[in-house]
């Protein structure tokens, strides 16, 4: 018997509203339909109304976890249009915060993976240690989540010798604990049984569906913007692109754990080799006319910002392509022929950030043409819709 179960928009497995409409036969998933659009925030339109500096703070609020990713991506595009040369020390600090953010995001993800598979102890432990990296970020920037360290032309805060010592001290604890979690995550039998062979995505599928980030790398494609198209100071850093060949959720865990360990190495290198000098250059209020695309390897994958300037103090157009959006098509393929029990972990394995990825889609009636709808009309429409719906008839309440 095939039944449809609604996973979302409100569901304990999902931290943000998205709707997975899953057709199941017993415990087997037959078909999946992803519906978006529950969390549109109008960010791109908002960005057109703020000036260049204000927009840094708007970009920061696209996502809580990768707040530094979005600002860096935006700032890089603006610097490219203006032709600003950012001082080396500024770039080093920018990269340092970026790598710390990756550590914080991946530790968070490990905890979420534990929670989705019912391994709450793992969740509690990784989130406890995430506090260490958040404290480090607080030492550097003064904030735990929205670091506000970027400015156009550099960074806003310098880093002192005492801070370096503190960070290196906490880093040792983090490395030790991460190695322990890497061990648990890949050896604990019940945990591995839940991850091994779940959500398969072959190399060909991953590339043809344009997956990004750890999902792509877990399928054996060594694709990383930091290596392929280095920005900031990644061309000077010694690091390897973490990959796995299995193409399942276990592979995605391994890729993230490897990336954590690589990030620690990078952070140590950055702290030990940071050059002296200024941390930023002064940027003008108005940016030259022009356009630029900036790429950035966020913890979740490749982040893209397109910025267009018409010479004013506000951007003419700003387009954000968050990494989660690129991973949705692959998710549908991964979910097919799996079990209901695997839905949360497969969906969580792309590290979804729904509200970052939501953009509006306007459907225009071709006969009537474009029409602006007032809020009162919208409200009336929804009331009519529910009045028309006959709840006494079977199947109307859960109509899919």
């Amino acid at each position, binding site marked *: 018997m095939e039944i*449809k179960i609604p996973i979302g928009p409100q569901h304990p497995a999902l931290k943000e509203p998205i709707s997975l409409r899953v057709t199941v036969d017993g415990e087997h998933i037959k078909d999946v339909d992803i519906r978006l659009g529950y969390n549109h925030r109008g960010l791109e339109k908002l960005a057109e109304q703020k000036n260049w500096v204000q927009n840094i703070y708007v970009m920061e609020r696209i996502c809580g976890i990768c707040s530094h990713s979005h600002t860096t991506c935006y700032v890089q595009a603006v610097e490219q249009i203006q032709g600003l040369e950012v001082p080396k020390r500024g770039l080093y600090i920018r990269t340092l915060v970026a790598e710390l953010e990756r550590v914080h995001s991946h530790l968070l993800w490990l905890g979420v993976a534990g929670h989705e598979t*019912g391994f709450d102890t793992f969740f*509690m432990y990784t989130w406890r240690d995430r506090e260490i990296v958040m404290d480090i970020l607080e030492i550097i920037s003064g904030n735990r989540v929205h670091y506000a360290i970027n400015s156009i032309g550099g960074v806003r805060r310098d880093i002192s010798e005492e801070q370096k010592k503190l960070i290196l001290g906490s880093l040792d604890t983090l490395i030790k604990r991460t190695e322990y979690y890497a061990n648990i995550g890949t050896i604990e039998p019940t945990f591995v*049984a*839940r991850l091994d062979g779940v959500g398969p995505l072959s190399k060909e599928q991953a590339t043809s569906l344009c997956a990004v980030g750890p999902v792509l790398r877990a399928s054996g494609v060594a694709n990383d913007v930091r290596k392929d198209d280095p920005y900031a100071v990644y061309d000077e850093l010694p690091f390897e692109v973490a990959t796995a060949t299995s193409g399942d959720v276990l592979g995605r865990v391994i890729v993230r754990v490897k990336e954590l360990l690589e990030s620690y190495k990078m952070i140590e290198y950055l702290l030990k080799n940071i050059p002296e000098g200024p941390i930023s250059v002064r940027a003008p209020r108005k940016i030259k006319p022009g356009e630029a695309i900036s790429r950035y390897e966020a913890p979740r994958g490749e982040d893209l910002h397109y910025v267009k300037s018409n010479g004013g103090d506000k951007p003419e157009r700003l387009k954000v392509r968050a990494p989660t959006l690129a991973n949705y098509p692959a998710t549908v393929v991964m979910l097919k022929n799996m079990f209901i*029990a695997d839905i949360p972990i497969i969906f969580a394995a792309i590290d979804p950030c729904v509200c970052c990825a939501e953009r509006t889609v306007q459907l225009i009636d071709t006969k009537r043409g474009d029409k602006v709808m007032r809020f009162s009309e919208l409200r009336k429409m929804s009331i009519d819709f529910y009045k028309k719906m006959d709840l006494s008839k079977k199947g109307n309440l859960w109509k899919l």
Partner: protein
Amino acid sequence: METLKDIIFILIYPGLFFLLSYSLFVEWVDRKVYARLQNRYGPLHTGFAGMLQPTADFIKLMFKEDIVPEKADKFMFSALPIFGLAIVATSSLFLPVWHYTAQTSFVSFSGDLIVAVYLLSLATLVLFLAGWHSTSPFATIGGVRVITMLFGYEIPFLLALLGPAILADSWRMMNIAAFYQQTPVLLLVNIIGFFVALISLQAKLERCPFDIPHAETEIVGGTFTEYSGRKLAFFKLMTSIEMVVGSGLIAVVFMGGFPGGFWIGMAHFVVKTTFIVILLAFIRALCSRIRVEQVVTFSWRYLTPIAILQILIVILVKAYIN
């Protein structure tokens, strides 16, 4: 005098009063141990070290709004929580605590071990029916998962309890306990069976790694999705009591029961069942939830053969003793 004893037995110890308060205590132990293993504090503020927290939760849930879904089978939906609570409370009467004599009575007779196990299985069936009669997709899937899991753990559980019974040459819990009280060395023979029974009990209680029927991140509340208020409180209480009875059963069969009179027997009961509950909390903290088909595979590939191995060992030991 005998009548008074019966009334105390049914109402106070180990009857309703003791069962209710002790199951809430056991829930506190479980929560506290689980929390400490996870680097948390657990209940802290209500009563001494949060001891009254489960009671407070229960009372609060009793006052919450009680919703019956429009499409649910109203009679079954409302009757099942009470029925389930009654079943597990009844099964507790068969534990040989203090009120038994050499003659058979209504709570102690040859085969009472099987009756207690049977009543506990019936409680599982109640959970399935509760899910099924809720008619929501999540509850239905949860109900089906309950039954699927039952096929996995029920056989090893019974087989594990069978070993000590064969050695003691009795199906009456009182006799089994008395046998091991005389020769406690023989308890060591059953050590493998003890762990099989412990894991099966964990599955019976639907706790991690077997909390599949109400896996929060997969199917919301599972069997309990549609339940709220008083009915949910009854189900929660039922699970706690089931934990007490299940661990009591294991304590009788594998740990020599509860010798002594009223007070010493009660001390034995509390110490032994709490020990088992702590072990169950350890299992709960150290595993991740497995899939429903993995439960069945696991129990038929590992648990059942191990339980049979245990029985073989018991038979050999018995031949050696005789």
